[in-house]
């Protein structure tokens, strides 16, 4: 199976997943108790007004018809208008994404930078005290709730030492680059630490695997020290499971972003989602969740491609 065939197959899977998941989300929210039009108009809901509203939002059509029309607009980037507030879902989402996406991106990179070296260290010093200690720390890291990590970081770096802001994002957004970055440091570190703890275990077991391989012994026979042999042969091999787990963890990262945005009061997608849930803005929630799920699938597709690059044997499968 050549590279092209592999890519094609994964792409087809991606499309199917996107359609199925968006249909599920759509269905879930359309089957709700309560009438959307009624909810919006409340006591002003004369039969004519209700009917007009329904036609306007296409609520009088059948479910499959609604789904298809929603989907056809969605793939073109138009997620429609919120029935409750009339706001354009896509533009609001994009606006908030300028905070959330950089947050997730920086956090992922940091998480890998934390996990791989620490994981390899834990594996190298397998029976020695610093290896055991590192493993214990990662155990702890998995058990600690993300929001607590955030609170602790705020305590140390924001409240006690006043280095970083304890929350919020500059009013003028990214045009104030310095302040914007400062606002993202603690949140990104929080996410990175939470993810890193999980990834570290995989990096560690992958490295232990490498150490037990024959080619590791060959490398040692050529004169490399244990650390040196790991540097030459281990990093790539340790990266493969770490990256693939990271890919599987995208949704956890997104949830983490929601939590972190709440802890640090960042005006991102997560924050927006929680607010919409509070005011029961169903259509907006649906649009956001559908877009997010789509993002998750696309990212994991891309990660699979990267893995195919890292591991040449996978291309042949």
């Amino acid at each position, binding site marked *: 199976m050549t590279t092209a065939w592999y890519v094609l197959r994964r792409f087809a899977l991606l499309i199917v*997943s996107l359609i*199925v*998941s968006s249909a*599920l*989300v759509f269905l*879930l*929210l359309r089957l*709700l*108790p309560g009438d959307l039009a009624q909810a919006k108009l409340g006591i002003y809901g004369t039969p004519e007004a209700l009917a007009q509203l329904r036609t306007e939002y296409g609520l009088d059509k059948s479910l499959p018809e609604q789904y298809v029309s929603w989907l056809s607009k969605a793939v073109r980037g138009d997620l429609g208008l919120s029935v409750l507030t009339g706001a354009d879902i896509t533009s609001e989402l994009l606006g908030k994404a300028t905070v959330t996406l950089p947050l997730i991106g920086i956090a992922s990179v940091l998480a890998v930078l934390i996990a791989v070296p620490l994981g390899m260290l834990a594996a190298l010093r397998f029976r020695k005290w610093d290896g055991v200690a590192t493993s214990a720390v990662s*155990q*702890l890291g*998995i*058990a*600690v*709730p*993300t*929001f*607590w990590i955030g*609170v*602790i970081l*705020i*305590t140390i770096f924001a*409240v*006690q030492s006043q280095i970083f802001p*304890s929350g919020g994002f500059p009013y003028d957004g990214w045009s104030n680059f310095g302040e914007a970055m400062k606002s993202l440091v603690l949140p990104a570190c929080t996410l990175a630490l939470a993810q890193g703890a999980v990834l570290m*275990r*995989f990096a560690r*077991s992958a490295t*232990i695997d490498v150490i037990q391989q024959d080619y590791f012994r060959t490398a040692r026979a050529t004169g490399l020290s244990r650390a040196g042999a790991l540097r030459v042969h281990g990093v790539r091999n340790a990266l493969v499971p770490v990256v693939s787990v990271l890919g599987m963890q995208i*949704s*956890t990262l*997104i*949830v983490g972003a*929601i*939590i972190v945005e*709440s*802890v640090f009061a960042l005006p991102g997608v997560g924050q927006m*989602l*929680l607010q*919409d*849930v*509070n005011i*029961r803005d*169903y259509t907006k*929630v649906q649009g956001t*969740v559908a877009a*997010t*799920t789509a993002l*998750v*699938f696309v990212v994991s597709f891309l990660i699979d491609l990267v893995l195919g690059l890292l591991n040449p044997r996978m291309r042949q499968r």
Partner: protein
Amino acid sequence: MMRGNRTLTIGISLVAFSLMMFLLSFIWTPYDPLEINPELSLTSPSWSHWMGTDENGRDILSNIVLGSRATLITGVLAVVICMLLGVTIGIATAMSPKWVESPAIFGTDIVLALPTVLFAIVLAAVYGPSTYTAVFAIGIALSASVAQVTRREVNVILLADYVTAARASGSRNLRIVRTHVLPNLRASLFVQASGASAIAILAESTLSYLGLGTPPPDPSWGRMMASLQQYLIIDPIFPLWPGLAILITVLGFNLLGDGLREALDPTLRRDVE
């Protein structure tokens, strides 16, 4: 054949500690957790209030003890749901013909891809935040993972000779499940349940931190941390207490699961190692 298993011992002690708090909450707390004392608002830990008081003058220690109820009840209920659902689906899928198995696996994968908390958020959007939406959401979300692991294990069990022999002698599927599959699954189920409990409790505390869990006035650790966070400036120790409570409980279940896995069957498939 249980050797001195340090992980297991620590795990059991920590979980026991949380359970004791839970039981204690029905018998006695130092103060009435819900009693408001505005004049005592936000006092630091002292001999009279070991963990200090919150913004309403309520004793934090008493609230931590009472808060264990929300967390543990949600956790246990969610785990019961996810285990029952997950194991049933897992076994059923593994023993079904191919044409049923494939779409079922696909469905499980899709549910697996959807994160627990996101699912709970969507549900909260519909039904409003409460203990039950949290339990339901966590239970369903976790059942997918339990179903997947169970399915794999059952597939391995089904390959055994004694199963083939049982089939050859005419045993129907249900009997095979009862006499061969379930007993062999037992160890793995215990391990999975511990792991699921840890995740459920983490999820519950996260949901209540976000305001999507047990609503006031019943205290819950996650929500306590959210409200105490604003008062960090006065004394950073306030949000530490609910955090410690959560940490101890989750760590306890994690170590319990790891310890059980070591003790019951070292050849059990380990996802990480």
